[in-house]
């Protein structure tokens, strides 16, 4: 049985690889038709994509956000959802990461005890709020009967916990500025990543609720949320609150402590010259770890089991007691969080600012990556590398040859087309045998 499954996996991979190869062959013919030398174009393409350590690093740098958005789309696909909103969620995550990475270290250095919220008048009021919250928490512990009451109790419990945390932070901050300094210093990267994931998830929340409660197609709502995110972000970059002074529409730079370290720092001295030019950073490692976690989640946890069951046969899942609506919301939140992390990697690792339009195409390419990668985390990583390398090869073609860079887009489109029509090709082959 294991052998059989392995054979199935091999057949799947072989199909995808042959689709990619076929796309390259068709691209070759295309170059020829347009009157360029295909050997020259292809050699520049491959050299640009994978020739030498520096080009490999560039390619992997392009790959990293695509892994995140590809995973986001693939995870949603597994639950039968088509999350086209990865781009908007990525923007939301990136923005949150930028704000945390810029504002928290600045705030951490300040003494807050004299500021409006923590002065002698307000501090007792705050303490009262803390007491009230703790009382509310105690109230939620009282058992209730019946289902609606149970759900309400759950909501109250969550609200109570959040309120208590806020209250405790409020009480502690002026007393323990050391803690706050630590947050601003060491913990700022994890904090920014968490903020990005939460922001990405929240950006997916409304489409998720609309889908699970009212059956509104997530395809349409997530597209609309892309517009909301990108246009809102563009607008915020015109306001003094978020725009750095200067000609470039971007937020102020994130603090050095909030940046993701460049991988060059961990590489041997001899590689530094090649790696220094790129911004390949620990975000790439994070992407690989996240891919493994997603795979573990999907196939080794009870929630993953339920999520895939909903994707494979929602009716059967419902009949077996799985909450389909709950799975839809959870999936969309996780999907949004993955895309949000991709945004954080871009801001904290590559640009160090939230720059206008850095996001263009990242979410949509993620859909292609998920498709080519067959919605499997491993496949997504490989497909993201393919697309990242092609992008870098395209840059090289642009610089080194007269051939229009659009070829690479055509090639990408061919790959997606052929991979998507893989089942169709199989079907045609089968039918002929009949």
């Amino acid at each position: 049985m294991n052998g059989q499954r392995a054979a199935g996996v091999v057949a799947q991979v072989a199909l995808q690889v042959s689709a990619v190869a076929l796309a390259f062959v068709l691209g070759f013919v295309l170059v020829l038709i347009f009157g360029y030398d295909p050997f020259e174009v292809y050699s520049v393409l491959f050299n640009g994509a994978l020739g030498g350590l520096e080009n490999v690093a560039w390619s992997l740098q392009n790959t990293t956000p695509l892994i995140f958005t590809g995973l986001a789309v693939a995870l949603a696909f597994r639950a039968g959802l088509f999350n086209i909103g990865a781009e908007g969620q990525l923007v939301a995550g990136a923005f949150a990461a930028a704000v945390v990475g810029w504002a928290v270290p600045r705030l951490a250095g300040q003494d807050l005890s004299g500021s409006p919220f923590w002065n002698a008048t307000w501090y007792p009021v705050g303490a009262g709020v803390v007491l009230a919250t703790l009382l509310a928490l105690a109230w939620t512990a009282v058992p209730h009967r019946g289902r609606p009451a149970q759900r309400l109790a759950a909501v109250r419990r969550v609200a109570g916990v959040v309120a208590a945390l806020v209250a405790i932070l409020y009480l502690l901050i002026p007393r323990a500025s050391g803690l706050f300094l630590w947050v601003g210093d060491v913990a700022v990267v994890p904090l920014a990543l968490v903020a990005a994931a939460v922001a990405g998830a929240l950006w997916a929340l409304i489409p998720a609720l609309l889908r699970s409660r009212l059956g509104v197609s997530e395809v349409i709502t997530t597209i609309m949320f892309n517009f909301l995110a990108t246009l809102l972000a563009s607008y915020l970059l015109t306001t003094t609150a978020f725009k750095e002074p200067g000609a470039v529409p971007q937020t102020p730079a994130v603090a050095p402590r909030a940046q993701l370290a460049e991988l060059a720092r961990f590489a041997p001295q001899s590689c530094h010259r090649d790696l220094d030019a790129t911004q390949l950073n620990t975000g790439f490692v994070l992407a690989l770890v996240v891919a493994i976690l997603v795979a573990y989640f999907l196939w080794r946890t009870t929630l993953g089991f339920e999520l895939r069951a909903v994707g494979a046969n929602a009716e059967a899942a419902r009949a077996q007691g799985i909450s389909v609506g709950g799975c839809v919301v959870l999936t969309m939140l996780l999907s949004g969080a993955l895309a949000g992390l991709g945004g954080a990697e871009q801001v904290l690792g590559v640009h160090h600012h939230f720059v206008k339009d850095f996001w263009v195409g990242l979410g949509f390419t993620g859909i292609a990556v998920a498709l080519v990668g067959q919605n499997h985390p491993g496949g997504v990583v490989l497909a993201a590398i393919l697309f990242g390398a092609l992008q870098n090869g395209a840059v090289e073609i642009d610089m080194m040859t007269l051939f229009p860079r659009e070829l690479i887009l055509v090639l990408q489109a061919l790959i997606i087309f052929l991979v998507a029509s893989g089942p169709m090709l199989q079907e045609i082959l089968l039918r002929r045998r009949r």
Partner: protein
Amino acid sequence: MPQPERQGPDAATAPPAIEMIGISKRFKTVVANRQANLTVNEREIHAVVGENGAGKSTLMNILYGLYRQDEGEVRVFGQKVEDHGPTNAVRLGIGMVHQHFMLVPPFSVIENIILGIEESAGPFLDPSRIARQVVELGDRYGLKVDLEAKVQTLPVSMEQRVEILKVLVRGARVLILDEPTAVLTPQEVEEFFKVLRTLRDQGSTIILITHKLKEIKAISDRLTVMREGTTVATAATGDVSREEIAQLMVGRPVRFAVEKKDRPPGEVRLVAKNVGYTSAGRRLLDGVDLSICSGEILGLAGVAGNGQTELVQGFTGLIQGLEGSIELDGRDLSGLSVRERIELGLGHIAEDRLKHALVPDYSIEDNFALGLHHRPPCTSLGRLMRSAIRAQAERLIGEYDVRPPLPELPARQLSGGNQQKVVIGRECSREPRCLIAALPTRGVDIGAIEFIHQRLVGLRDRGVAILLVSTELSEILSLSDRIAVIYRGKILKTLHAAEATESVLGLAMAGVA
């Protein structure tokens, strides 16, 4: 016992209507037909019988030109058929009525019939000429239908008539009917058989694909039994007994009667009081009162579509917000989710296993886990316990004889009978307090039916309360301790099994209390 069939055209003196000689057909690695021979004489009703997966459908699809055989020869009225296809089949006078009707519901009857001939009639149609033709055919064969009625307003038995008329209008002299009685009440079956006899007497040849032994005996002139892709016997129906046919189909002797000891029922487990349900303005359940005791099988008889589905889904929680009350062990189920009901011990064998009972892409072991996958031993701290799931699956595969016994195989790749064994095994092994068994033997072959019946009786003997929903009267009669008849959402009659006969139930199922 019948003789194995002799080969070739010398079997009959006049050229028979259909001859299929040495047919083999392979799909990738699966052999669907292996050296199958079928000879159907003119003006006879010929039953092709066999279990699921015996190759009946493939053989018929080859005859109708949907598939092409790898080996062998097809002759129609003595003439060898080359380059076969559905269009060609129609020209040769072969028509097929599929198990699932292929009608356009919002279209009228006549429009549906015209749709069937359109392809071969050129760009211009003369609806009135066709209508006249249909009326004439209907008069001749007793197939009366209102031509202007919309198909969606017709009962299934009428839809079937439309399908048959469609085929006849195209000039079919050989009719292939795939499981035609599956959707009919006993009385409708009688009516339908009359039509078939008229068709035969007027010169048509009928090939009937079925697995219902009683109907084979009632209607067919000759029969061919298929097993494992090949034809194992052809005989005149009068020469073989039901038991012999069943043995030929399964390959071993089959017991029909379910052994069931009398057993006094225990305490009341499941009670439904005054249950009602209205959807889209239609009253689907109306004042249903039922109670099932521990150690009792309550049979719910009725023609499909009279509220059984809604009642079952109301019990299991798939439909929420029913009127009235449903109690399990004295506990009100209203407002409880599907999961909570499963956890209280309410088992459910869903009527449509691929839609509600199984996730076809999931492996056998995962399907065994479904429903209680979120509890130990399948789950610990939110992680799936793969080894426990595997161990459970291996135990159940052995106990319920699932073939092939491969826990990793996707359920999709199992035969219908084995899929159903997975469902039965899952629900029975949980020792439910009450089991809702909706059409537990639907589309399952004789050997598996026997097995499933034994399991249900075994559960009953261990004190489980069972609601058996079935459209097969023989199943209801042989398993139930008490029988309730549902008609248009109401329970028309509840009686003890000893008082029930097929005719009493049949009348109640048709609404005559």
